[in-house]
């Protein structure tokens, strides 16, 4: 049996999980770029150092984002990955593809790139891994002809993303797909022409299940919610009770605010104490539905840990009615981005800026009133919102 060229990578094929090495080997059978990529990765494991040089070219006419330059620092050994640029392609909202669109996308990438893809990246884009400099423009042209556009990268508005929303989910309180698409089209210039201090991410979830994890991953989160009472179908509640669910232990006792009572016949919800955790609705989907008046909660400041630790988004608008053309939402985004753009340091995310300057400064700048729902976490002090002169006024 022939000795493997990649003994260290081979180890990653063992175990019960799918292996990216297996996929790369499959691609390497027809792509010299993928073959050199494997060999360079093997060398990286051997040397215990990455052999990529990041950054550089943004080589598509009129665009300052969507291409991430990458070069091998050992082109002498791996000439086929001397340039191995990544292209970020704006995904269809909610990740709904027709199969012919996917085939077209793959055909374009087989023609211009390594055939390797990452479906999808953390922001949501289609990540096309590895093309040469001379293919960037022609690849972009072919992608455009197939109906695709590049997404955001660098210090720009990143490609907005949304959950599947009303396309597949009965809990959708807002049309997350339409909101996301509308914002994407409205902010094309901010996505393609980086002018921000750093990245800015918008994610839209149609309900509080937050399936795109907007609260943890975006600077500006839009999360569907409702006003008023959760709709109850007591007949269906009883049906759950006699079938599979212990309503007391599995629903009422697990409610984080204990806002539900079950007497064996009827379920009562104290809606004023409900924090929209969705647990009861998820568990008894036939019996409970979100309230009738629907809109979204707006939060800001989520991010992963880079400069500072991880931040979760913070409520700034408890309820906003969301209807096309979403003027109120866009006005708010513009005010927030403008304040961040003016005061943010380079590479400082919105959440970090708010942490540095304070929530009350932020609220005054964007013209939002302080409201009780803005408390960052249970048992935190909401009085940070008050300005000294307001406290003096209260004392008098």
């Amino acid at each position: 049996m022939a000795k493997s060229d990649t003994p260290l990578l081979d180890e990653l094929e063992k175990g019960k999980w799918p292996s990216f090495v297996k996929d790369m080997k499959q691609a390497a059978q027809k792509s010299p770029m993928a073959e050199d990529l494997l060999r360079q990765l093997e060398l990286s494991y051997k040397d215990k150092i990455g052999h990529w040089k990041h950054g550089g070219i943004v080589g598509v006419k009129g665009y300052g984002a969507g291409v991430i330059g990458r070069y091998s620092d050992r082109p002498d050994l791996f000439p086929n990955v001397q340039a191995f640029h990544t292209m970020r392609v704006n995904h269809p909202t909610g990740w709904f593809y027709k199969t012919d669109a996917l085939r077209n996308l793959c055909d374009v990438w087989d023609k211009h790139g390594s055939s390797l893809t990452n479906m999808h990246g953390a922001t949501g884009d289609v990540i096309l891994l590895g093309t040469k400099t001379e293919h960037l423009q022609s690849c972009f042209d072919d992608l455009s002809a197939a109906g695709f556009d590049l997404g955001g990268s660098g210090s720009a508005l990143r490609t907005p993303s949304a959950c599947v929303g009303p396309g597949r989910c009965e809990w959708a309180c807002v049309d997350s797909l339409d909101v996301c698409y509308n914002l994407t089209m409205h902010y094309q210039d901010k996505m393609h022409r980086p002018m921000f201090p750093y990245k800015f991410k918008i994610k839209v979830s149609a309900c509080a299940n937050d399936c795109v994890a907007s609260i943890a991953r975006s600077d500006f989160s839009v999360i569907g919610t409702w006003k008023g009472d959760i709709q109850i179908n007591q007949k269906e509640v009883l049906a759950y009770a006699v079938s599979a669910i212990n309503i007391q232990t599995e629903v009422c006792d697990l409610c984080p605010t204990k806002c539900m009572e079950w007497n064996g016949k009827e379920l009562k919800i104290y809606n004023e104490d409900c924090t929209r955790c969705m647990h009861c609705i998820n568990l008894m989907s036939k019996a409970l539905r979100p309230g009738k008046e629907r809109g979204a909660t707006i939060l800001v400041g989520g991010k992963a840990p880079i400069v500072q630790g991880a931040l979760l988004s913070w409520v700034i608008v408890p309820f906003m009615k969301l209807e096309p053309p979403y003027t109120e939402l866009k006005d708010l985004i513009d005010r927030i981005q403008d304040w961040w753009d003016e005061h943010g340091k380079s590479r400082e995310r919105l959440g970090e800026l708010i942490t540095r300057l304070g929530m009350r400064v932020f609220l005054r700048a964007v013209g939002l009133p302080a409201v009780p729902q803005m408390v960052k976490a249970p048992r935190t002090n909401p009085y940070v919102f008050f300005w000294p002169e307001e406290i003096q006024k209260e004392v008098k």
Partner: protein
Amino acid sequence: MGVNMSEDLKKQIVDLFHEKSKGDKKMFYIRDVTKWLPDVDRHTIHDAVKVLLDEGALVYWSSGSSTYLVLAEFFPKEEGSRS
């Protein structure tokens, strides 16, 4: 008047890029540019920089997470040799 002012601003920005690029540092954040011109409206600077990008006087350089601006003449040649 507006066109002239815009041309003046563009020239001012390019001159500043040349001046600031005299040392080893050639790449700058857009934030640096707005700091060089504290008396000019930030949005006006952004617009002027966009025009300079369109005209090819400035080019973007991106690390993937951050984007820099660099005079076209100082844009690194095609990389790939060992650093």
